[in-house]
């Protein structure tokens, strides 16, 4: 087993265990932390695949911004482990069974796919470098790039509007 394989298995195991812990932690803050762990392991996978730009972006955006946002909101709620509402046991069981069967079905279906044994290029390949990605982004995909900026704008406005506290209704002045 080469270093690559070893790293792959280690990172996969890490990701899976962290994900399981995310969904099963009672304390929501713990769930957030374990999710960050997942992101880190996935970034590890990216580095293994030599997708350097994405690895870093993943950490910055997901682990750095989105998870922090989650933590802020959690802190705002001030949730404690004891008051955390739990679903009924049979519902949890049903959910687990459903998810599990989905996994089984998909795995069984895709096992026989033609591409199954094609190799991915690990540790090498220029495509993951920021220079090449940037070239591709600003030549072919420049329109989606610009539109995504508009998307951000609308998201910002939306978030602000939704989050505003309601003003008490003004008393009407002079008839109507």
């Amino acid at each position, binding site marked *: 087993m080469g270093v690559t394989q070893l790293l792959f298995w280690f990172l996969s195991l890490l990701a899976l265990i962290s994900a399981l812990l995310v969904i099963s932690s009672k304390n929501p803050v713990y769930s957030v932390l374990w999710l960050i762990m997942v992101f880190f392991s996935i970034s590890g996978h990216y580095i293994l695949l030599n997708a350097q730009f994405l690895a870093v972006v993943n950490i910055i955006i997901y682990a750095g911004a989105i998870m922090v946002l989650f933590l802020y909101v959690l802190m705002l709620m001030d949730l404690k482990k004891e008051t955390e509402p739990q*679903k009924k046991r049979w519902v949890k069981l049903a959910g687990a069974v*459903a998810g599990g069967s989905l996994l089984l*079905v998909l795995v069984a*279906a895709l096992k026989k796919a033609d591409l199954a044994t094609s190799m991915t290029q690990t540790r090498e390949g220029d495509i993951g470098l920021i220079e090449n990605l940037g070239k591709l982004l600003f030549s072919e995909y420049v329109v989606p790039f610009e539109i995504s900026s508009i998307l951000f704008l609308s998201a910002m406005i939306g978030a602000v509007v939704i989050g505003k506290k309601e003003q008490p209704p003004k008393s009407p002045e002079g008839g109507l």
Partner: protein
Amino acid sequence: MQNSLQIAWLVPFFPLLGFLIIGLGRKYLSKSLTGVIGSGTVFLSLLVSVWIFFLVKNENVHVAAYFNFISVDKLVIPFAFQVDALSSLFLLIITGVGFLIHVYSVSYMQQEAKEHFARYFSYLNLFIFSMLLLVMGSNFVILFIGWEGVGLCSYLLIGYWFKDNGNNYAARKAFIMNRIGDLAFLVAIFWIISKTGAVNFNEVFAVAQGQVEGKSFSANDITIITLLLFFGACGKSAQIPLYTWLPDAMAGPTPVSALIHAATMVTAGIYMIARCNILYSMSDVTQDIIMIIGLATAILAATIALKQNDIKKILAYSTVSQLGYMFLALGVGAYSAAVFHVMTHAFFKALLFLGSGSVIHAMNGEQDIRNMGGLSKKLKITYFTFLIGCLAIAGIPPFSGFFSKDAILLSVFEKNPVIYAIALSGALLTAFYMFRLLFTTFYGSFRGTEEQKSHLHESPVAMTIPLIILAVLSILGGIVGIPEVFMHNGEKLKVFLSPVIAVSTEHSVSHSTEYLLMGLSTGLVLVAILFAWNKYRNYKKITEKGFGKLLENKWYVDELYDKLVVNPILKFAGFLNNVFEKQVVEGLVNGVGRFVNYSSRQFRLMQSGQVGNYVLLMVVSILLLLVFQFYLKK
């Protein structure tokens, strides 16, 4: 037109037109107009019938086909009329007597309101139409259409005064008993179709005589078909066991009783058997059965008539009895004698009924002869014509009844002297009860109320003229059937009918025996009349006991039927209504509604508003989709 008899369609057309006009316009036409239209249409049919009769007499026989009534694969049933000797004779009887009764009815039903008066005449016209269809049909199906039609009109007319529930029950009884016979008739038709693939008389008779390649009747076939047809005739012509409807049918107006239950509908059975005489001659078993049933009916009805007290009921049982004689004739193979008796019976029975109608009219609705008496002084024409009718039915020469009844008795004697003896005794009973009726009603002193006595009057002209005409026919009607012993070539009717009814070989009885029989019957009848005269000319009311009571209660046959048949069926119907209908059927139907309600309530719970449930459902659905996509779609 290829044959002038093609206009035979006119004969039933006129009464049909009359039915439509009067029926649809019953609220608008005046009574006199209704009467004119109603009688006029039958008169026109009579004229065409006379014309047809003369054409047929000159050897012009024709099957007038018009269109195909049913045309399915190999079965083609044409709407066609068979114009030959037998049907033209019946046409004359139906339209002739029918016309007279229509005229009579105009006066008899005067009391009715305008639209009821019109209703009566529309039904009567419809009846004539159906009866004409019956005798003119060239195949079993058209005959059956007419058969059903007369059953329907009989129901409508018996229950004419529908406000009285008793009349409705009588009408229903008549219809249902008819229907039982009709079922047998239908089965016979199906049997014929399955064996021959055709229903036309000519074709069926050809097959029966073995003239058609590939198709034939076995002996069993013939017996079964003839028995079934005969059972149908039992229902229509009131033989044992389906005769109890006829006396009850007297609930209808008297002209209806005269037309339907004396002259025409009840003779439909005789017509049908006479038409199928080829089939019946081939089956000895059926003929014996017909003979026995006819004889039994004749005697049974005669005994019951001895002790009845309602004028119309006596005549009703008399009709049943005379029909028994006609069937007796058919049973011994004397088809033309039976038809002859149909003709003469139509004359004198219609006469008797119309006469009784005249009496009832004079007595202002009274029908019990125990409350009558001495009417001969006030109702002269009625009395005289009634007397003629009684003489005819008793069989006194030279009235028509003598010749027809004698023809029957002679044929019966040739077959079996014992049966002849029983039939002769029946004839004596006939004479006895008829003259009992005559004497009780018209002789002696009046036994009714004073008010009735003051109202006694002779009937108006419209009622007495038909009486007179019928009386004349009753006297002269025998001319067409004078036997060999009296006049050479006197059997005109037999000769006339010979294309349809094969003439058998000469009589096996010598002339002297014939004279002896005639003399015997006439003499005994006269004795019976004298006996009746002695007993009833000064009638006193008595209560019946013992055997008389049995006869008065009609041998309790109605009660027997009620117990055996009617009540079980009613109980069964009640069961079906209360248990089956209410619980099973309605439960099922309501159950569907309740089930839909319930399931919709259950489905509504799916819209719980719980996000978690929705997501779960989504996942499950996607799962199922994937499974389906990858594994089940090969």
